[in-house]
């Protein structure tokens, strides 16, 4: 079946009208860097397509202590966000320059592992997803967004319009292991953020993993194991071991499941060690 129409709405309202009319029959393109690959290969042939490039959803605003990032803000722009160095670092690790100019932040939430590095950083930053439908919007934590491989909590008439990120506390590190230094999907990615008190005791921790399961996930037991402890060799070793238990990676052309699980431990250890320096 050939594609019959491409809609290019010029406002968020127009996009939501189209979505409410066509629901799941409408394939949504942010920058197109994931879906156009499948269309070019003939792997998918959507009847209807909507590009959000002109929908006016690319604004980035600082609002009382948090950052509101429009769904279609490009990864190139996100890579320049000095208020969110962890997210900026993750964006810089995605694709090449041309891909980052096209790919969008919200689009990155919909690409299955081993892609989706920005989503990993957003998890470690307690980001919230703003989902809109014609009748109104709701806010859901990113931890409740992912439901399975390429499956989300969005209804058929819901659109991600914005991603809100609180001003991060603590120290954070993003690490990506790929098969090349740049422009590579992930063997494993880790985004780690630790808040410590004046004595160096961990009072809060986030350990988010990419390419370690069907979707970006948080290793909550690894986070818990750091609670009330200093970041030292024993606590870091424990957290890395718990993170390996949380990982349920897949095997693909880049890496085997076995290797990925090993590298989850290595990346979490290295990220936590980097925070102590």
């Amino acid at each position, binding site marked *: 079946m*050939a*594609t*019959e*129409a*491409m809609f*290019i709405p010029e406002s968020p309202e127009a996009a939501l009208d189209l979505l409410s009319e066509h629901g799941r029959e409408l394939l949504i*393109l942010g*920058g*197109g*860097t994931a879906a*156009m*690959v499948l*269309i*070019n*290969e003939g792997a998918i042939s*959507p009847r209807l*397509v909507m*590009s959000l*490039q*002109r929908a006016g959803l690319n604004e980035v605003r600082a609002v009382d202590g948090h950052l509101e990032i429009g769904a279609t803000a490009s990864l*190139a722009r996100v890579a320049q966000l000095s208020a969110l160095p962890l997210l900026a670092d993750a964006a810089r690790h995605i*694709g*090449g*320059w*041309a*891909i980052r*100019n*096209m790919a969008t932040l919200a689009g990155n939430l919909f690409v299955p592992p081993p892609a989706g590095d920005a989503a990993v950083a957003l998890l470690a930053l307690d980001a919230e997803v703003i989902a809109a439908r014609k009748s109104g919007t709701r806010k859901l934590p990113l931890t409740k967004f992912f439901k399975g491989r390429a499956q989300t909590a969005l209804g058929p008439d819901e659109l991600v319009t914005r991603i809100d990120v609180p001003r991060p506390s603590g120290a954070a590190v993003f690490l990506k292991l790929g098969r090349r230094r*740049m*422009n590579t999907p992930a063997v494993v990615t880790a985004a780690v953020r630790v808040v410590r008190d004046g004595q160096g005791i961990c009072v809060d921790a986030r350990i988010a993993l990419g390419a370690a399961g069907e979707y970006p996930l948080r290793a909550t037991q690894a986070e818990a194991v750091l609670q009330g402890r200093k970041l030292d060799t024993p606590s870091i070793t424990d957290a890395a071991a718990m993170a390996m238990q949380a990982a349920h990676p897949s095997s693909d052309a880049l890496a085997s499941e076995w290797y990925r699980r090993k590298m989850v431990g290595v990346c979490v250890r290295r990220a936590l060690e980097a925070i102590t320096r």
Partner: protein
Amino acid sequence: MQTVSFKLNGKPVAAVVGPVESLRDALREKLHVYSVKAGCGQGGCGSCTVLVSGDPIVSCLMPARVAEGLEIITLEGIGTPAQLHPLQQAFYDNFAAQCGFCTAGMITVAKALLDRNAHPTREEIVEALAGNLCRCTGYLPIISAVQDAATRMNRGG
């Protein structure tokens, strides 16, 4: 099929395209711009890179319809056989092309880099070109050519 109009290398053009036809195919097959190479079709090789409002993008992943009203620059808009851009001369002098398939994309990205940063470090050149694959040269002459072009342009030649 619908008509899309945009500026190509400074001149207004129009083409009749399918709903999800890529900008790459529209440029090659409708507008006969053959410096834009059809490589992987996955955004992975960079050989179809063009500049949109000065920013490099891979034209295989942009639906042509999305280019409505935009300013597109291809290699044809960077230099001509009679008047090579310093990057093209530097690629020639540094033996930075072998089969030539990646060359247009490489020069297009390098142009965008030098437009923003007249004195890039070697690492900055590598980062800028990371999305462009070359299967012949091993990259070293390409990186040297971009450095050489920057030096020439900074001297005013």
